[in-house]
């Protein structure tokens, strides 16, 4: 899945302070080429600050990063050529049309003439906005603006794309849309993507690897599976036909496979608490078949990244309010960022 090459982004001890507040606290990680890397954490965790530093529009206080072969502190202009970015807030010019927005951005990246026009049309097509190209952006919906921003981030065919909360505030349908663009980018263009999000499902669905960030520090980094296996257990409910004669044999076999402690059962339902259910479930069917037990229904719930976060921090990402401290932190960060 992830090729073993020199990383395309290397972050070392990157640190940013706003007054007394350490927004990003000595973080280090590598991103491989072609990888979708998720930065997951609650509001105010330091995700946006990290992205802004990597995109060279905020100066780090300590540490640095090499992005596409260039140091963000020493060669910001070279870095800017290689990256595309979709900001968290809407940054398209609402007074202009979609086409004009892209044309201006294209110019800022040195594209011109026929080539620029072709790229714009191609990308508007990609994000399904071609028929809206001559409409002023103020008349777009939030989802359309977000799609236009994605198109803009891709104009100069960057090697790396930064997406800062790409589906924040979007309706479920548009979210699904944006997700499909992101997966297509990876599949069709082998693009390296750094994504920040506070939605667990988003990090889990899109990312090859996820770094969980809290109070400016990375507290865990692994594949989504790896993270979930680290802490969570999946629960599997097997509903069986109680008239099956070899039920007890089936249960014994299950105990042999997954261990005694994690099974409980009633008359027609067996529940298992196991790690990595997707790998075990085929075995369950195999054993049932072997013993002639008829499974009528099977349900399972997976451990989520939120469970991982809960285990690591004692809080949930999901809490919109969060603790008072997190809230103040997010407020302060937003205020300082101006």
């Amino acid at each position, binding site marked *: 899945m992830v090729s073993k090459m020199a990383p395309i982004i290397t972050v070392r001890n990157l640190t940013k302070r706003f007054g007394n507040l350490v927004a990003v606290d000595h973080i280090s990680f590598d991103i491989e080429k072609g990888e979708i890397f998720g930065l997951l954490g609650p509001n105010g965790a330091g995700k946006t600050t990290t992205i*802004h530093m990597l*995109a*060279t*529009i*905020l*100066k780090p206080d300590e540490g640095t990063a090499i992005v596409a072969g260039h140091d963000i502190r020493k060669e910001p*202009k*070279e870095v*800017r*050529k290689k*990256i595309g*970015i979709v*900001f968290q*807030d*809407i*940054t*398209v*010019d609402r*007074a*202009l*049309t979609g086409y*004009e927005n892209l*044309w*201006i*951005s294209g*110019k*800022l*990246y*040195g*594209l*011109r003439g026929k080539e620029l026009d072709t790229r714009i049309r191609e990308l508007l097509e990609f994000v399904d906005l071609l028929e809206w190209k001559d409409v*002023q952006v103020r008349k777009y919906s939030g989802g359309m603006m977000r799609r236009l921003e994605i198109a*803009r981030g891709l104009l100069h065919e960057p090697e790396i794309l930064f997406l800062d909360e790409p589906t924040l505030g979007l309706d479920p349908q548009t979210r699904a849309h944006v997700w499909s663009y992101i997966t297509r980018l990876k599949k069709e263009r082998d693009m390296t993507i750094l994504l920040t999000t506070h939605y667990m499902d988003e990090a889990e669905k899109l990312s090859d690897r996820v770094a969980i960030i809290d109070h400016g520090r990375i507290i865990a980094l692994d594949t989504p599976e790896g993270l979930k296996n680290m802490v969570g257990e999946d629960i599997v409910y097997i509903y069986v036909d109680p008239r099956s004669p070899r039920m007890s044999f089936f249960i014994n076999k299950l105990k042999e496979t997954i261990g005694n402690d994690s099974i409980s059962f009633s008359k027609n339902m067996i529940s298992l608490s196991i790690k990595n259910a997707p790998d075990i479930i085929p075995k369950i069917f195999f054993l049932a078949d072997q013993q002639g037990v008829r499974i009528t229904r099977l349900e399972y719930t997976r451990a989520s990244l939120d469970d991982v976060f809960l285990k690591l921090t004692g809080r949930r990402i999901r809490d919109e309010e969060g603790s008072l401290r997190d809230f103040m932190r997010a407020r302060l960060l937003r205020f*300082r*960022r*101006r």
Partner: protein
Amino acid sequence: MNWWDSFIAMWYRQVKRFWHAKARVIGTITQPIFWLIFFGIGFAASFRGVVFGRLDYISFMFPGIILMTIFMGSFMSGISVIWDKEFGYLKVVLVAPSSRKASILGRSLGDATIAIIQGIIILIIGYPLVRSINVVNILPFLAVALLVSMTFAGIGILIATRMRSMEGFQLIVNLITMPLIFLSGIFYPIDTLPIWLKIIAYINPLTYGVDASRILLTGTGSLNLMTDITLLIILSGLFMALAMHQFEKATID
């Protein structure tokens, strides 16, 4: 060349933004016309007999009214960089590999273009009202307008890049624009002002633009045309250079 592309991109943005906001076009032109009609005609009537230089009052204030429009247009556009900061567009410019100096210069010239077009429209509308206006010197007049525009776009950008938030925006605008407009010789000659006001008027770059325009369009003024133009060249170059320098090292802190 990337320098030229960045320049064109931002020039185009300002011009297009204005083009889309047709209501704004009308709005910015009506205000100076109102000044000219309701203030100018009223004052001219009560000043009957009083002579400004060799001019009647409307001819006296007309070049200044055009300059006032150009000044307001470019200063407000320069300072509207703060809006780009607030609405995130600044990030888009800063994250691009383009020449920042070229983009801010393009932006200022875009604003200047619009301001000068507004000035020309007012000149055309006001022309029938004004007795002694000489349009032979229209081209040097437009050059003066451009210099004034670049000066105040530069000052506006300098203020905007130093402001951290929108708070105080309106205060700064009022605090700066009102004294500059009144102490520039648009409405009355500066020669007869008390000395302390005269000093402020001489510090005000707009004074030289107004004087040069009045000399070019009516033939009379308080100062010397060459002095006016030399000072404007120096001031516009200085403030644009400072603005470009400031913008080059801008971050979103």
